[in-house]
């Protein structure tokens, strides 16, 4: 589209940028303020002095080494499982003859409309019965595949031409080799997108850990953070926000490095869904 008033538009764009980034800017400058400065009113728009020690202080206070490790373990494991199982299932639903395939696919897509709170209670009991309650496994195996993931991969694999698979079959390629050496390389971009989306979802996951974990040494980052807001011991806001900033950094870095996959994934999903 042609632009008639480039300067006006630039001003408009930068104003919006400032408004959108304001909460993040505020998070950053508040997290390095001193305990005294943070309680001042009106607040300062630039810290008088930078108290970087807020970060190590809150890190030790919350035992963040353990919490970070829990979050990394859960997020990485669940993302790997989701990616593998969703790709396999998406391939089967797209290219294989399976009895009742269309009905099954419709049921799966239908489950996406179920509101997550409806599943909390049954999941809680099922996971207790399986002996996984209050362990990190309970956040990995039950969430080792997502309907979204299967749906997303199926849509993508639908675009892989059947002739490609037939040609491999004629060359005497086995079914599993076809999957690994013919299909996987073609759908690499889709896999990358799914990995990022599921990584962020799991990293940010709060409700399931809240219901399924009990001991504090198993808590993941969002759970630990949420507990801060209801903590009876008064922790200064500067340190709460420092902890908050620490949990945000990994996903924001990941996003900035890999954003083109992210944005492409969402836009493709929008067109197809």
């Amino acid at each position, binding site marked *: 589209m042609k632009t008639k008033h480039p300067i006006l538009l630039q001003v408009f764009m930068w104003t919006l940028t400032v408004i959108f980034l304001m909460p993040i800017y505020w998070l950053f400058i508040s997290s390095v303020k001193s305990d005294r400065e943070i309680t001042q009113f009106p607040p300062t728009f630039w810290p008088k002095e930078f108290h970087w020690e807020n970060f190590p202080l809150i890190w030790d206070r919350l035992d963040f080494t353990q919490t970070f490790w829990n979050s990394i373990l859960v997020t990485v494991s669940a993302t790997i499982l989701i990616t593998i199982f969703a790709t396999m299932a998406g391939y089967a639903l797209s290219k294989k003859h399976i009895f009742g395939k269309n009905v099954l696919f419709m049921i799966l897509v239908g489950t996406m409309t179920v509101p997550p709170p*409806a599943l909390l209670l*049954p999941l809680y009991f099922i996971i207790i019965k399986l002996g996984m309650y209050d362990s990190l496994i309970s956040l990995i195996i039950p969430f080792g595949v997502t309907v979204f993931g299967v749906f997303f991969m199926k849509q993508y694999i639908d675009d892989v031409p059947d002739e490609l698979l037939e040609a491999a079959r004629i060359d005497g390629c086995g079914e599993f080799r076809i999957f690994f050496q013919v299909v996987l390389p073609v759908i690499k971009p889709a896999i990358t997108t799914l990995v990022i989306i599921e990584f962020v979802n799991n990293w940010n996951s709060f409700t399931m850990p809240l219901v399924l974990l009990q001991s504090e040494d198993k808590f993941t980052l969002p759970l630990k953070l*949420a507990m801060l807001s209801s903590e009876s011991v008064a922790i200064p806001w500067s340190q709460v926000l420092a902890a908050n900033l620490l949990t945000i950094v990994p996903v924001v870095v990941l996003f900035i490095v890999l954003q083109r996959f992210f944005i492409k994934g969402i836009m493709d999903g929008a067109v197809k869904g």
Partner: protein
Amino acid sequence: MKRFDLRKTDWTGYAFLAPALLILSLFVMYPIVWAFIASFKTINPMEMRQTGLFNIPGEFVGLNQYIEVFKNDLFIKSLWNTAYYGIVYIPITLVSSALLAIFVNRQLKGINFFRTVLFIPYIISIVSASLIFLFIFNSDQGLVNALLYKFGIDGPNWFSNSLLAMPVIAIMSAWKKIGYFMLIYLAGLQNIPHSLYESADIDGATPFKKFWYITWPLLGRITLVVSVLLMIDTLKVFQEIYVMTGGGPGDSTTTVPFLIYNEAFQFFRIGTASAMSYILFLIIIVITVWQKRAVDKKLG
């Protein structure tokens, strides 16, 4: 002629599907069935401990629990609260994301940076965003009241005012989601074939006519989809309530999901929690079906 021939069946397909199907059956489909059955039964949480994985104990009470839920004042209030959230959240997000999509769908210096900036709030967790907004709207240290103070306005105590708490939460959600819905609109806009605009140019159409006859009808279709997604978002609000207000002040931010959580995990009323879940589910189904019909009508 397709017949189901056992010898010719390619069993590897089932092998590929098996892990996903096993997990989804046990942890998605079974819970859906479980909640449905539980909504018609009174279940004693103690009994629940002793039964097997596929047993749902308790006495069948028909629709009693649904009736009870509708007699529950707090449930009715939570429906209103949820609606109040939606009234703020849906229009703000819808209008801003559509306008921004039209705006970023052009060649302008720094536009990619701008798109990225708008999208960053989306990847921040709800818990983190809630903590940030809790601080920004803090009555005596927060940024918002500081800005109001500069204009000589005495800022209110946002989270202890039963009229203001919910809109603040809705504004936070809008901040988080605008970038995402902007991308969905953008995908739609970029899908309009350029040839349409070119032929309109040949016919001498004004920019307004091009917008009205080409862009707008297409945007209308996405708007329908986006508004349904926003309504579903509205019916899912839980984490922000848990972190920011805990349902208060005076139950004014108790949403349906938050109530379900409390019913289930604070009071262990399994039956009524399940009944509430299914009522919520039913509302979503009605909205989805209504949306599908509206889209079909528009297309056909």
